[in-house]
């Protein structure tokens, strides 16, 4: 009989080529060889289709029980495709209530039949739960998405592993978030291996809290009284949006004036707002609790929104990266019925998200901001990597930096039992980022290991070892043959990583059952409306693609 053991495997996210496609598997093997597994996250990784011909890559889904750390696409967006590839496989999802509401919204938005919906289980804070023989504790952490958690997974042999999820160590604005004590008590009970988000570890200091966004946004409000505003945001990163709500409330409190009105324009914002309400995190209510001020949050379609004086309007829109069909790009093209520049008061557009350095983003966003400027909007956009300045910074990331990792190391050092020291391993990053994380823990006197995708961490009788041989990493290429995200025609290709050639190779095309219903499927069938919504050209192409392509050609 072999010894029992607990293994961790990064199924995706410890990539050589950048962040994304996060997925992790924990397996317990008993003495008799029987195995039990659970998975944490099943995300996607963006791909530049012009270079690869692939829309995105998704991590494998290898277990029936899936814990989800938070609602970002790099942690959840693989799931719906796996349901299409394996419609009869049972799937249980364990997540925070907001994450669950958000995922349900995403799945129903794409028309997944209710019979194929996974079974959602809410993790209640402070309540441990049992999944397939593992005892799980979800500990709130702070990230840009509300409801983010770290998971402590205790295997039947007593091994305890902690996946920190995506986190930073300052307080959350909306809902629960990071508390030193909670992480300390996890270490106090003993953690054998801790896996740490490495996204921003190569940057110094601690990532500031969203209070800094509130201060920066407040300064923008002070500098722009009686101005029609349009704020670009990422819907599911609602911590940042809520920081703006607080700024609006504080302005009203200090000036004694009526608060400005937030007007949401865009499906994902309306859905996130609803998911927050259903999860008991209404932004209006939470703001009132904190400031005593009730900031009205309206829907751009509502008649009430039209009667708000232009100088009191703060439109909130999506499309910070120039996505073609999102409200910001449509406003820039003059196609948005809900938002037009005011002729009576000044107009200000704050794109509250730095350009994500991927594909054509920079050119597309530049073009969009220039078009808005031409329409008479003053435009603001934060610079990626800019220093944090109190009263000026109005965008901060949800990922911790080197200082946040140091804090985790300090908490571990102060709390871990002397006879059960934790081993730290960087995840959620490329080689440089994960190694930067491990360097910090090593310098803090902690034990450290390093893994790539498909390399196992084995814990047996308290000994932590990294397998010398690396398995074959797997992923699925998702290709939309229609090249039309409103009406996709998917193709899924399973790929395996060849470490010798250092590249991914196709294994096979995966058959699937078309369960999702595109936005235009039914309307197209009826005639009249078909073809109106789904413009060709994919997801993030906003203004003049021909001009951008020509410019790219010229600069090559």
């Amino acid at each position: 009989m072999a010894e029992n053991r607990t293994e961790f495997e990064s199924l995706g996210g410890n990539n050589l080529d950048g962040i994304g496609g996060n997925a992790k598997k924990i397996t317990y093997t008993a003495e008799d060889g029987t195995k039990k597994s659970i998975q944490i996250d099943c995300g996607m990784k963006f791909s530049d289709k012009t270079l690869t011909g692939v829309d995105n890559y998704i991590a494998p889904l290898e277990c029936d029980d899936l814990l989800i750390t938070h609602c970002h696409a790099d942690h959840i967006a693989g799931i719906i495709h796996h349901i299409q590839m394996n419609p009869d496989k049972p799937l249980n999802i364990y997540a925070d209530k907001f994450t669950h509401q958000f995922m349900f919204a995403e799945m129903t938005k794409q028309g997944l039949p209710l019979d194929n919906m996974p079974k959602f289980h809410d993790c209640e804070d402070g309540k441990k739960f049992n999944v397939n023989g593992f005892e799980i504790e979800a500990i709130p952490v702070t990230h840009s998405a509300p409801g983010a958690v770290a998971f402590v997974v205790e295997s039947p042999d007593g091994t305890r592993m902690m996946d920190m999820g995506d986190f930073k160590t300052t307080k959350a604005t909306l809902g629960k978030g990071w508390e030193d004590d909670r992480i300390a008590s996890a270490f106090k009970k003993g953690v054998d291996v801790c896996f740490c988000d490495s996204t921003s570890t190569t940057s110094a200091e601690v990532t500031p809290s969203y209070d800094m966004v509130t201060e920066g946004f407040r300064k923008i409000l002070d500098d722009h009284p009686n101005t029609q505003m349009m704020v670009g945001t990422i819907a599911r990163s609602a911590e940042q949006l809520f920081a703006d709500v607080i700024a609006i409330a504080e302005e009203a409190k200090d000036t004694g004036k009526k608060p400005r009105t937030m007007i949401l324009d865009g499906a994902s914002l309306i859905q996130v707002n609803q998911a927050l309400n259903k999860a008991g995190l209404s932004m209006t209510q939470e703001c009132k609790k904190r400031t005593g001020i009730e900031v009205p949050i309206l829907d751009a379609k509502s008649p009430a929104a039209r009667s708000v004086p232009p100088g009191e309007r703060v439109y909130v829109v999506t499309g910070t990266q120039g996505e073609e069909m999102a409200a910001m790009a449509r406003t820039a093209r003059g196609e948005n019925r809900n938002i037009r520049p005011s002729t009576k008061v000044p107009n200000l557009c704050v794109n509250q998200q730095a350009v994500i350095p991927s594909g054509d983003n920079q050119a597309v966003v530049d073009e969009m901001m220039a078009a808005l400027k031409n329409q008479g909007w003053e435009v603001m956009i934060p610079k990626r990597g800019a220093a944090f300045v109190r009263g000026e910074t109005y965008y901060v990331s949800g990922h911790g930096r080197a200082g946040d990792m140091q804090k985790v190391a300090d908490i571990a050092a102060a709390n871990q039992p002397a006879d059960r020291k934790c081993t730290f391993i960087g995840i959620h990053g490329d080689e440089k980022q994960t190694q930067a994380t491990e360097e910090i823990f090593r310098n803090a006197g902690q034990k450290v290991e390093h893994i790539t995708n498909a390399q196992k961490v084995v814990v047996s009788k308290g000994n932590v070892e990294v397998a010398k041989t690396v398995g074959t990493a797997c992923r699925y290429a998702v290709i939309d043959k229609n090249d039309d995200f409103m009406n996709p025609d998917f193709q899924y290709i399973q790929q395996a990583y060849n470490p010798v050639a250092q590249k991914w190779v196709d294994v096979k095309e995966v058959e699937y059952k078309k369960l999702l219903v595109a936005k235009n499927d039914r309307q197209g069938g009826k005639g009249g409306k078909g073809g109106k919504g789904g413009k060709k050209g994919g997801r993030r192409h906003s203004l003049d693609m021909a001009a951008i392509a020509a410019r790219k050609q010229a600069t090559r």
Partner: protein
Amino acid sequence: MSLRWKDYVEIADELNELYPDKALTDMPDEELISLVRALPDFEDESEPDETVLGAIWNRWVYVGYPED
């Protein structure tokens, strides 16, 4: 073909065709239920649960607002 509660995609499309300018934020469940029951081809006597109402609402938001 008559619609039942679980046909949430078709229900949302019909609602959107009939009420394209309806603001969906804060719509009470009772209002959503009565709009669905009033659809010409809806035939389902059963009571909808929270899940199916959420599904109709989400899909309606998706088809009703021109954004991904």
